[in-house]
């Protein structure tokens, strides 16, 4: 069973139906116990980071989802659901516009860094249109990316060595991460052994999908970059549009459930991962 996590911010029917059409045994639930028993978890993307984070904590979903990911259950985060994989988010947080604020909302902290608003200008200082709405393509990450929105992370992937997400996180945020204390959550997931991060397009979620395929995006916030990035998208700035943690946890910035045939193919790939797990 694939649990589609309902954190009470919107309609999840299209995600549920998309997974069922892809052959998955999906059901929508807000019950932490049901999530804890699920074979796989999908965290959809509706609402704002801080709202979703608060509801997930109140309902005990945050720990349930983290535990499933830590246990190796297949996970797919969509849009905000991908953002919630990270340590913190500024969207909807108190003092959001104050860049020095330490009141960001806590995420699952599976991946390091802070989800923040798209920069107002591109690398040349030109304004561009936000939200990023419409159909866009994916490309393998040019990592470490020149002029990417957050190029501060150490580029240790590709060397075959383990990536210290802790260290990467601190480098990104420029400050120690006291998040797990603030959030009242258990310590962040430890990376044991070499992570299954793939820096090319060779991610099972995109099996059989050509690099030029279009997917539907609608967002104003973006994930930080790092060795966990599987694919990037460009809209004046370049940002992560797919991330991976170990072999089974994925996040996508686009909406596969709204991306017609290409999105259906991604959902089928995820269901295949679930069935093979």
């Amino acid at each position, binding site marked *: 069973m694939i649990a589609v996590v309902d954190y009470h911010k*919107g*309609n999840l*029917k*299209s995600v549920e*139906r*998309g997974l069922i059409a892809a052959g998955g045994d999906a059901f929508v639930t807000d019950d932490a116990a049901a999530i804890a028993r699920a074979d796989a978890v999908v965290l959809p993307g509706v*609402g*704002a980071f801080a709202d979703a984070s608060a509801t997930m904590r109140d309902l005990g979903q945050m720990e349930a989802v983290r535990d499933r990911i830590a246990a190796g259950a297949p996970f797919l985060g969509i849009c905000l659901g991908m953002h919630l994989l990270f340590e913190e988010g500024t969207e909807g947080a108190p003092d959001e516009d104050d860049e020095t604020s330490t009141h960001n909302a806590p995420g699952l902290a599976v991946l390091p860094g802070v989800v923040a608003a798209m920069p107002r200008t591109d690398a040349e200082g030109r*304004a*561009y*249109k*936000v*939200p*990023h*709405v*419409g*159909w*866009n*393509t994916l490309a393998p990450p040019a990592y470490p990316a020149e002029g990417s929105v957050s190029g501060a992370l150490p580029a240790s992937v590709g060397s075959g060595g383990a990536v210290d997400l802790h260290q990467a996180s601190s480098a990104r945020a420029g400050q120690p991460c006291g998040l797990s204390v603030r959030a009242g959550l258990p310590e962040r997931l430890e990376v044991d052994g070499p992570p299954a991060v793939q820096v090319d397009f060779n991610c099972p979620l995109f099996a059989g999908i050509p690099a030029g395929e*279009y997917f*539907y995006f*609608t*967002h*104003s916030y973006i994930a930080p970059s790092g060795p966990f990035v599987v694919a990037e998208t*460009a*809209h004046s700035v370049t940002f992560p549009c797919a991330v991976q943690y170990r072999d089974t946890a994925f996040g996508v910035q686009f*909406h596969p*459930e*709204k*991306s*017609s*045939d290409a*999105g*259906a193919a991604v959902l089928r790939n995820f269901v295949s991962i679930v069935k093979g797990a």
Partner: protein
Amino acid sequence: MLAKRVIPCMDVKDGRVVKGVNFVNLRDAGDPIELAQRYDEERADEVIFLDITATSDDRATTVDLASRASEQLHLPYCVGGGFRSVADIRTMIAAGADKVSVNSAAVANPDLITQAAAAFGTQAILVAVDAKQVAGNPNKWEVYTHGGRTATGIDAVAWAAEAARRGAGEILLTSMDRDGSRDGFDCALTRAVARTVNIPVIASGGVGKLEHFAQGVIEGEADAVLAASVFHFGELTVRQVKEHMRAQGIPVRL
């Protein structure tokens, strides 16, 4: 690169597509869902259901349509028409609509945009602006409300800018002068708005032939182009339109 979008718009009354649909090979040409699925197959980027009913009884039908669409469509869709309050919008979003468009109610109460964007995110709120050129002034357009019946005295470009400032995620810009004319988009109007706001602009009103779509993007600098009857009557397919746009060097999803 972000593709320019092509958006078929359907006028819906009592849950049925009106203004005549002349599609062959549809079991039920008046069913908005079936028509939207047909457009999905043709690579439409999203669809808009414009509710042209007024009474609250009929609104329930439209909520039901949004609910069915969320189960049966695999592309984004927007529902427009008749929203007066955040509560109205909440009902439609809860039914599964990806976006709603607001028009007259936002002009009467601009705070509706602010509140709706705060509640549902800017990406969920389209502000529809119906604009008519001011007589004798080719670079000035006035906002009309209530389906084009009521002049407001408000400058269309300034209003679009305010809507964007208040949290609109997109502007759906219709030229009242061109709507139904088949003379093409008002590219001067579209360009004036597109250069003023930092959110996407959907050009609407006036499409009659293939070339008009590319003109809306190239001359009007629109991020998306909308049409209704040329698609519904089967004069042009979405795919034909996109192939033509691509031949003009416009990035489209095909």
